[in-house]
């Protein structure tokens, strides 16, 4: 479960380029909820994710993950509670380490790291099983460096890595934006099926309105650091991309010119 209570974040405070990135965002995600976040560039989507993950420190407000107040904790201390997949496939995994080692790093997330072998027998079996079920043949390549894989393969494994340890909150920051359509769809399907299987609480930032309606259980629209639209359940099921755009126009009070928002 994620709760965010009147969260404020300002960048470059006190300078001429001061910018309010989040102004009083409140949000509760129950366990098992899969929430898609949309909004134009600079709306505060990534800042919201960053604040929950601990990359961006809250100026005021409160964030709890699974009931634990993490508002003041640095990113590495929150990692036991929350997993992330970044937009850049190179950022979420380590190209210089092998595929197996990357998975082992993620499997130990939230546990005390000791002197036991990172790729011990029992862990290796678990990892192999998880990679094998992807059906893309990577189980034979665990000893190869992560850097030899394509962006899609790396992003697929990043998703597996995010669901290896028992934490149930996953933050996805436009994790399919850098992929070609076929790979993006594969990764999105995998996201949905993993979320169901492990009953994950997911917050997914996307630039695609189509994705924001097709995947998950709830859709959130951010604009200038605030939530302007929040829909779920039967009402969401009847919505179309056109309706979303209309909502956005009304909220923004002007016509929509941002091409990136329309894409996909």
């Amino acid at each position, binding site marked *: 479960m994620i709760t965010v209570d009147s969260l404020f974040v300002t960048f470059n405070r006190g300078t001429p380029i001061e910018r309010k990135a989040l102004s009083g965002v409140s949000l509760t995600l129950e366990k098992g909820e899969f929430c898609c976040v949309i909004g134009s560039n600079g709306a505060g989507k990534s800042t919201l994710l960053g604040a929950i993950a601990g990359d961006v420190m809250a100026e005021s407000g409160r964030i709890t993950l699974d009931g634990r107040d993490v508002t003041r904790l640095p990113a*590495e201390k929150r990692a036991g509670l929350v997993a992330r997949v970044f937009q850049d496939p190179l*950022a979420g995994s380590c190209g210089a380490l092998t595929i197996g080692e990357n998975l082992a*790093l993620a499997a130990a*997330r*939230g546990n005390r790291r000791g*002197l036991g072998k*990172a790729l011990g027998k029992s862990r290796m079996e678990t990892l192999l099983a998880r990679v094998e079920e992807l059906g893309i043949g990577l189980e034979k390549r665990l000893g190869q460096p992560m850097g030899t894989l394509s962006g899609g393969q790396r992003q697929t494994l990043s998703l597996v890595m995010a669901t290896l340890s028992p934490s149930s909150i996953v933050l996805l920051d436009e994790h399919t934006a850098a992929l070609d359509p076929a790979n993006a769809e594969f990764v999105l399907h995998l996201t949905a099926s993993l979320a169901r299987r492990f009953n994950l609480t997911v917050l997914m930032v996307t630039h695609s309105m189509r994705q924001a309606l097709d995947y998950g259980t709830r859709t959130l629209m951010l604009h200038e650091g605030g939530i302007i639209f929040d829909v779920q359940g039967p009402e969401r099921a009847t919505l179309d991309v056109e309706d979303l755009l209309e909502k956005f126009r009304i909220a923004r009070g002007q016509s929509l010119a941002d091409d990136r928002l329309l894409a996909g």
Partner: protein
Amino acid sequence: MSAFAFFGAVELGLVYALVALGVYISFRVLDFPDLTVDGTFPLGAAVTAVLIAGGWNPWLAAIVSMIAGAAAGLVTAYVSVRFKVLHLLASILTMIALFSVNLRVMGRPNVALLNEETMLTPFLTWGDAAGMPDYIVRPLFLFVLVTLFALGLARFLVSDLGLAMRATGANARMAQAQGIPVGAHILSGIALSNALVALSGSLFAQTNGFADVTAGVGTIVVGLAAVIVGETLLPRRGLLLAMIACMVGSILYRLAVQFALNLDFIGLQAADLNLATAVLVLFTLILPRLRQKGRAA
């Protein structure tokens, strides 16, 4: 090259193999170019020489040297991590400071250890009894000791903790997202690296019979040379092999130097050593690039 000179070079290579292992941790594992080692090497030698001259057990003296080295490394890493001082600069500052510290430790620029009991003494006595010459017993002893450290290090680097350290150096953002305290790993890694270098200095003092405040000049380059020579000859992946490559690289580097000095027709003198080292390191650094170009053409 005489057998005596050959085994002498191997011996020195094994002493510096610990520097190579230390430099491997800072440069390769943590991606933290750490010049502290130029000060930590003579620090290890100084602490050991003073303690042994003061009647301490040589093994204990070596352990204290390692602790001193680790402390020096911690200073560099802390300044860099906590105050965001550029790692290179932080390490140069510590290195400069250590010059004074080393003089203070010894009370004078050098301390002789002739006829003192060292870690080697019992083995030399034993070798004498078995009819084995000193110049073989000494490298043999060092080989066993250094191999133990190399094996231990390889085992550490494949553990969860060691893997976390490698991730810290390879992709800090990803490491953090996986719950790895990046700063703590830099601190402990640089401390470990400098402890190994200080042990190397300690062994240098014990095998050569003296500690000198200037003995550390160029330690980083020698260590780097060993790492790079090793990697060039054994470019395969795998950590155990990388550790072995460090040892082999260090020994080969010393043999190459010895060989060059023995070739009278080149006209090299001992004074040319640093120049030759710099040229060798530069050559091994640009070799992979030259090869790439050759392939592309």
